């Protein structure tokens, strides 16, 4: 008989509920496509409007997402959190500067984004470089659902049901050799489609393409996810369609979106935010309540759930975002205030 002993960071499945959303999710899946789109339109946000731009409002035709087939993930990985962040919020509050530096902009400016055809190449120090086409992203590996906490470096967080596969499965297929010490990821560079890459102001002053990196052992950790969907369906573009990384114990900016290239390299790569503001954003970017951002505390965070202004949602931030059991070993002996 197989006896599973859940890890401390994992809660029981019945503890992950959002007043009915979770329990009835499977029966709701078919209708969620409509709710997702209309919920998005209903949330035309005045969030970042100043007094000068009260009058520009434009509803957008939503990108089409389609349902995916997937496996329930084993409990000890998947069910690790409390209340799911509503889908409409997950898909309308995004840091994806390629589509505008304001949180509400990607949901508005990314709806025409073309994900077909898509090519993801895996190359560098490996014996079997390969390329995945759009359909391969969904068919090469069995998709599983992983419910992860996402902690943004800006001290807000969400709980998101991702669909995807462990990055390690993909990397192993490419057979990295002994010179592969780090893995570099790159977002699509296409200024015609990504207005933030064309216009420096819209794109938040970042130089593109966006680049991220992981140490090979971090990349090979089973928690590290290549996500192709959320809430049962393919990813909307504002969340990084068609494929993105999810590293749940690191700040959100490590979880690079709309990936076209993965490369095995020998030297630690320069990641975009670290290059831009080195004293504020590091390479490791592990969630760490004891190391503050120079301009704000990282000791606590606000969990984005349903509920308006009065939602009492400030909670303590956990070391490694609560995934220490799985990943603390990777950083044994390292001074995490130096390697932030």
């Amino acid at each position, binding site marked *: 008989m197989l006896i599973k002993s859940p890890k401390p960071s994992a809660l029981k499945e019945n503890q992950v509920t959002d007043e009915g959303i979770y329990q009835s999710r499977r029966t709701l899946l078919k209708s969620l496509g409509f709710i997702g789109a209309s919920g998005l339109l209903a949330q035309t946000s005045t*969030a970042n409007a100043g007094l000068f731009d009260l009058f520009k409002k434009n509803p957008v035709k939503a990108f089409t997402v389609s349902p995916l087939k997937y496996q329930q993930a084993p409990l000890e990985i998947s069910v690790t959190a409390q209340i799911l962040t509503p889908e409409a919020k997950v898909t309308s509050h995004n840091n994806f500067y390629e589509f505008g530096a304001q949180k509400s902009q990607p949901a508005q400016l990314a709806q025409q984004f073309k994900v077909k055809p898509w090519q993801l190449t895996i190359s560098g120090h490996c014996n079997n470089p390969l390329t995945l086409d759009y359909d391969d992203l969904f068919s090469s590996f069995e998709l599983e659902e992983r419910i992860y906490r996402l902690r943004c470096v800006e001290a807000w967080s969400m709980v998101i049901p991702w669909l995807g596969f462990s990055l390690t499965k993909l990397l192993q297929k490419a057979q990295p050799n002994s010179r592969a010490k780090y893995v570099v990821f790159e977002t699509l560079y296409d200024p015609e489609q990504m207005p933030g890459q064309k216009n420096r102001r819209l794109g938040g002053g970042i130089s593109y393409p966006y680049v991220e990196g992981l140490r090979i052992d971090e990349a090979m950790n089973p928690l590290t996810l290549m996500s192709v969907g959320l809430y049962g369906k393919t990813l909307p573009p504002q969340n990084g369609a068609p494929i993105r990384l999810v590293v749940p114990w690191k700040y959100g900016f490590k979880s690079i979106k709309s990936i076209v290239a993965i490369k095995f390299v020998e030297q630690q790569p320069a990641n975009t935010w670290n290059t831009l503001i080195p004293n504020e954003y590091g390479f490791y970017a592990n969630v760490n309540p004891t190391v503050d951002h120079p301009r704000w505390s990282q000791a606590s965070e606000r969990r984005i759930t349903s509920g*308006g202004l009065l939602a009492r949602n400030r909670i303590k931030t956990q070391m490694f975002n609560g995934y220490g059991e799985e990943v603390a070993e990777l950083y044994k002996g390292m001074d995490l205030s130096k390697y932030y």
Partner: protein
Amino acid sequence: MKRSQKTKTLLLKVAIHLAALLPIINLYIDAFADQLGADPVKAVIHYTGIGAFNLLLITLCISPLAKLLKQSFLMNVRRLLGLYAFTYTLLHLINFIAFDLQFDFSLLLSEIIKRPYITIGMLAFVLLILLAITSITKLKRSMGSNWQKLHNFNYFIVFLVAVHFYWSVKSDVSEPLLYFMMSFILLMWRRKKIQRWF
């Protein structure tokens, strides 16, 4: 004051009340109903913050405009605009304490001490309190020429607010820089007055 001047002042004041209050009421209705994007807390903080800055700049436009256009009645709405700038600032701070920090006062204290942009913001707020209190007519009279000296601090406040905005932004500084420029132009208009300080 001429009758027409009085009517103009009254109409302008009504317009200012409406323009300042209606968006705020609308904002909070949406925010409490969770209809203000995914993070209504950040939304109300940013809206009241930038609104306060806008009102502060508009207040600073009044005396140059009154002179340029030879419309002295404009001076009658300056206090009202200043008080709305203060009200927005107060709401900005209340939003931060009540909805963002959720009354974690030890966190508030450490943030004020540790984060320069919050330190500066708080300093600007304290100065604005002084200006708001001394806008009461009786106090104004009893202060004599000291009143003007105190209220010239407004130029310093605008500078603090511009820095506060600049430091609070994550990467793209073009909007704060635009505000810096607008502040600079309005302060240049008073350069003689400001030079006398040094």
